[in-house]
């Protein structure tokens, strides 16, 4: 447990000092800030109560879909390339602790970003009456957080497969895109089992059909949790296999 925390802290601090993470942060706040300013204007001028769910849609795509591969691309690929993995693999750290630590550090960094965007709905809430639909907003944020958790785990797993950072980035982007679009074929054979499977595999469907509408469905929660665990498991196997070269 302590090892996980040690590694997570280092990962978090490393992102904090990396320029790329700043760029990601600034872009997230800038884009969301622009939409926020429209909302603010509408709220003040027309006493219109904005639905913050739309803002979060922007956050999910394209922001998270781009940001997470960028934040996770280096996690293992850089260690593979620079040889620092030799330090970690010869330190008394279990492989899963290493993978979970990396995931936790990156996820917490992303969580900090997401939580900071909460500033926008809070401000809107003060300005208008009636305020923002708080329970719905909370469900939205929970969904986004869970989705980010599984996406981060996938990014970390993919990073462990590469030595080249850009290759890791491209592979992560591709994989997430597939997970996003996988529900699309379902419309060609509606009502079938296959359609069900495709829809249920999709990263976004589990958000759009429940969290986004303000509902928290245990099935969707467990989808994201399972996906996170599965990706972390695969990441651990990938690190383990490095000892068997």
């Amino acid at each position, binding site marked *: 447990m*302590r*090892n996980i925390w*040690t*590694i997570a802290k*280092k990962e978090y601090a*490393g992102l904090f*000092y*990396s320029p790329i993470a700043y760029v990601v942060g600034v872009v997230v706040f800038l884009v969301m800030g622009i939409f926020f300013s429209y909302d603010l204007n509408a709220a003040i001028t027309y006493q219109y109560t904005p639905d913050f769910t739309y803002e979060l849609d922007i956050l999910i795509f394209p922001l998270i879909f781009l940001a997470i591969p960028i934040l996770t691309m280096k996690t293992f690929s850089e260690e593979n390339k*620079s*040889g*620092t*993995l*030799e*330090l*970690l*693999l*010869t*330190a*008394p*750290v*279990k492989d899963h602790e290493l993978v979970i630590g990396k995931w936790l550090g990156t996820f917490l960094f992303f969580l900090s970003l997401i939580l900071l965007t909460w500033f926008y709905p809070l401000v809107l809430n003060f300005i208008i009456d009636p305020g923002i639909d708080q329970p719905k907003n909370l469900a939205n944020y929970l969904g986004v957080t869970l989705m980010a958790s599984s996406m981060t785990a996938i990014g970390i797993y993919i990073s462990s497969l590469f030595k080249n950072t850009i290759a890791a980035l491209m592979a992560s982007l591709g994989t997430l895109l597939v997970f996003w679009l996988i529900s699309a074929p379902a419309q060609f054979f509606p009502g079938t089992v296959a359609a069900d499977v495709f829809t249920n595999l999709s990263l976004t469907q589990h958000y759009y059909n429940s969290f986004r509408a303000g509902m928290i469905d245990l099935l969707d929660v467990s989808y994201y949790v399972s996906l996170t665990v599965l990706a972390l498991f695969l990441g651990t196997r990938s690190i383990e296999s490095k*000892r*068997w*070269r």
Partner: protein
Amino acid sequence: MISVQNLTKDYDTHRAIDHLNFTAEKGEVLGFLGPNGAGKTTTMRILTGFMSPTSGTATIDGLDVMEDSLKVRHKVGYLPETVPLYEDMRVFDYLKFMGQLHKVQEIDERVAEVLIQVGMDDRSQSLIKNLSKGMRQRVGLGQALLHHPDVLILDEPTIGLDPKQIKEVRNLIKSIGKERTVMLSTHILSEAQQICDRVIIINKGRIVAEDAPENLQGRVSALRVVYVRVSEKTDQAATALRELPGVLSVKVLETGRIEVENVRESDVRPGIARKLVESGYDLLELTPESVNLEDIFLKLTREASSENPPLEPEPNDSQESEA
């Protein structure tokens, strides 16, 4: 402490180490010597749990490096050959991070202590990417020492250091080697001679010699050539020496020294001294040629390669271009 049995590692079809057998005791500094590609790093990487052997076993303090990998890694301090470091971290933070992974108690004090030990206390707040090669090496060494490991495995620890640091690091290794086990690899034979209790010479993945450095020297005929100097009548003295048993050839050098070449395994020095003194010469000097370890090393590794010729003949460019 370290025990290796029939350790073999294949990279795809290439055999990097081939049935290695050796041990290292507590309180011993073991030198691992060999030319490039001999398999030193490969062996160390297996001992530290970084990679698995193809066959054979290795144990540290009775624990199998594969089965009890985690416990073994607790006991071992390792300086990898490439000295990997986190470029964007500060020296202090880096050592603290590695120390935490090794469960070092009172980490801040310990890091400060190690920084002094490796002479980096004045650079503790520097970013690692701004350090010189030798400084990086010292930080890497500090990392290996942090958790007071029972076994230190150092892959070319003094490479890139300045002479003063080399001396300090060698002394450090020697003092650590008194109570613990140190295994180090090097290309520098005089270094092995200075700090190692025992030296293993490895070539093309096989052990070609294993002994105390003094004995290794003795192995390749210590007394092949003896230099003699007399006060006068050098040429006559040389002629007199030719008759001595065991002497192969005698030559008078321009410096006025007589070079006496004798058969291996026989010490002709007492004979030379007696003969010259009895014949009335004043004997000024009688020196055996010092065989340096470099020669021994080259000889041993050359012998080994001719015994086990490489599968592919080594290209010989000069001959081809002349033909």
